[in-house]
């Protein structure tokens, strides 16, 4: 009798003979190149996949090109007008100086006396994004913490789909929700009747509130992902030191995931800045530099919509101005995205 069969802790390993092994793993197939038809098929699949990946890259390049050629420098050759005169194709910044664009405080391309200062539009955009952030960030973060740290699997299975529904509502619906519910039934009674501030039919606050609601699902699902990726061992260590669930969430898990959470905030704010439909409907069209959230403001996006929908003459300075505004918007959201990528990378470094 062998010792190992007596001892339950020793692994019984029957050593297979070489011939047995050979029978199983010996190479049988030939090493010749596969038939050419198979190779063509492989190459075809590869090309299709690459093309799909290429679509988004080409689109981005195309958009950047259109923005630049209309806003910064027009590459198209000069045209000869019907009257025989040379009409130079000029981009927006070849006509309006970037200094005026950045420092002037009036934005009146549609009036007789034209001023091209982007500040009122940036101001409107930032005010609405700011209000949206004040609502979306705390609510989104709290729901992320709830889902990741507190919710039972059952509660999660109910709340997650609800958040997804919220994310799927068309933004135009949010816009009308602001216009026909938030302003008349929330802001007017509270702010106007109780506190005594005038609330306009169109106002930044109602737009900010609905955009804030709009970004909650985004913040909550992105933040929840990073919270859940905090290793379980870290939570256990914290519990073993006498932490309550609240201690574990606020003092260990959230700080450990902080850069990922901030990245989710930045992405959501970028979304709020670019939000168009709800803002166009709810905030109105008054390009002013103001600190009052209860009056009408214009944002970069809502200006672009209005010029696009109006009967603006093609090639006019008005038409060109939307590219300059679009470029500004593009730069702002791009910056937010780059910063959030950078922050996220730092988060990953902590655990890898």
């Amino acid at each position, binding site marked *: *009798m*062998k*010792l190992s069969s*007596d*001892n*339950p*802790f*020793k692994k019984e390993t029957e050593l297979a003979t070489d011939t047995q092994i050979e029978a199983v793993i010996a190479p049988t197939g030939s090493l010749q190149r596969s038939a050419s038809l198979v190779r063509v098929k492989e190459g075809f699949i590869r090309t299709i996949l690459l093309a799909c990946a290429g679509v988004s890259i080409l689109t981005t390049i195309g958009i950047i090109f259109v923005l630049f050629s209309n806003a910064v420098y027009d590459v198209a050759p000069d045209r000869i007008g019907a009257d025989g005169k040379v009409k130079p194709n000029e981009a927006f910044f070849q006509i309006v100086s970037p200094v005026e664009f950045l420092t002037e405080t009036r934005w009146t391309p549609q009036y007789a006396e034209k001023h091209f200062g982007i500040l009122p539009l940036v101001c409107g955009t930032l005010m609405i994004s700011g209000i949206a952030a004040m609502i979306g960030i705390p609510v989104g973060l709290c729901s992320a913490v709830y889902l990741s740290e507190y919710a039972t*699997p059952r509660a999660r299975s109910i709340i997650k789909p609800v958040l997804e529904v919220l994310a799927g509502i068309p933004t135009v619906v949010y816009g009308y929700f602001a216009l026909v519910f938030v302003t008349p039934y929330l802001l007017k009674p509270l702010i106007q009747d109780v506190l005594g501030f005038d609330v306009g039919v169109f106002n930044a606050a109602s737009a900010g509130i609905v955009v804030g609601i709009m970004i909650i699902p985004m913040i909550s699902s992105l933040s929840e992902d990073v919270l859940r990726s905090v*290793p379980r*061992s*870290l*939570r*256990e*260590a*914290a*519990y*073993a*030191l*006498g*932490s*309550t669930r609240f*201690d574990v969430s606020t*003092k*260990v898990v959230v*700080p*450990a995931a902080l850069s990922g959470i901030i990245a989710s905030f930045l992405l959501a704010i970028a979304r709020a800045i670019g939000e168009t439909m709800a803002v166009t409907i709810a905030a109105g069209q008054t390009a002013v530099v103001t600190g009052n959230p209860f009056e009408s403001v214009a944002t970069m996006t809502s200006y672009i919509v209005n010029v696009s929908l109006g009967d603006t003459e093609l090639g006019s300075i008005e038409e060109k101005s939307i590219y300059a505004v679009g470029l500004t918007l593009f730069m702002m959201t791009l910056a937010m995205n780059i910063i959030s990528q950078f922050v996220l990378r730092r988060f990953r470094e*902590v655990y890898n």
Partner: protein
Amino acid sequence: MNTTLNDPMDELAPTTSSEPATEKTERFVKPVAPVEIPETASLSVDAATKVCTRNLDFYYGNNQVLFDVSLDIPEKSVTALIGPSGCGKSTFLRTLNRMNDIIEGTRHTGEVLLEGTDIYASEIDVVLLRKRVGMVFQKSTPFPKSIFENIAYGPKVAGLRNKARLAEIVEASLKRAALWDEVKDRLQDSAMALSGGQQQRLCIARTLATNPDVILMDEPASALDPASTARVEDLIFELRKNYTIVIVTHNMQQAARVSQQTAFFFQGILVETGVTKELFTNPVEKQTEDYITGRFG
């Protein structure tokens, strides 16, 4: 093979196979001391019981993994839990500070008594319990904070705000965990930058900072290199003077070096408990003997 050469294997083969198998088994099993047993591997007889379990059964869902475990853990000593992988050592250890509570679907029957009080009784505050019964894990788990903040974490969640007092605790804990000299000049640096062995001693220091009386350690040195392991073992050996320690280990040599009592688990059953020296030199149960010798025979 060239048959003209005198192959040593040819000479040995017949003798080995002709030897009676029973004799061979005897020879492997009889001298039971596979590990060196230091003099410290025994208990003073009058040691009081700190923690004990009574008829403890434990279940993950419907899967029972502990069967009727009754074990007394004497105070100010090291108790080693040994046994093959999956036999329930970690599960048992985690019942002692109710860490299993945070896993969904677990339940138990039987009692776990800390100084005679049932820790699963409804009036027990599990947060306070875990301060008294600290735990160190296999994988070191420093928080991504500074060294100082890691150690101060426990006292802080317990409500201590006094800066000077916190600094005192941090220093005392690090000294006790034999880490102070290595980190005293960089307390504000990230704990993640420490070496594996230092991180594990940091985790021990962090546990000491909550001022526990019992420390549970689940394979605390299994991820460390030999030098760091030796340091952690020395530390555990020192700590037993002030704390009651329960340690899970797969390393018999380590169990012999650091513990005074050893408990052998097999498939969820506590097979044998005894003073380390006796359990290793003269096990009562056949299964214990097989396990100890199987590893090192």
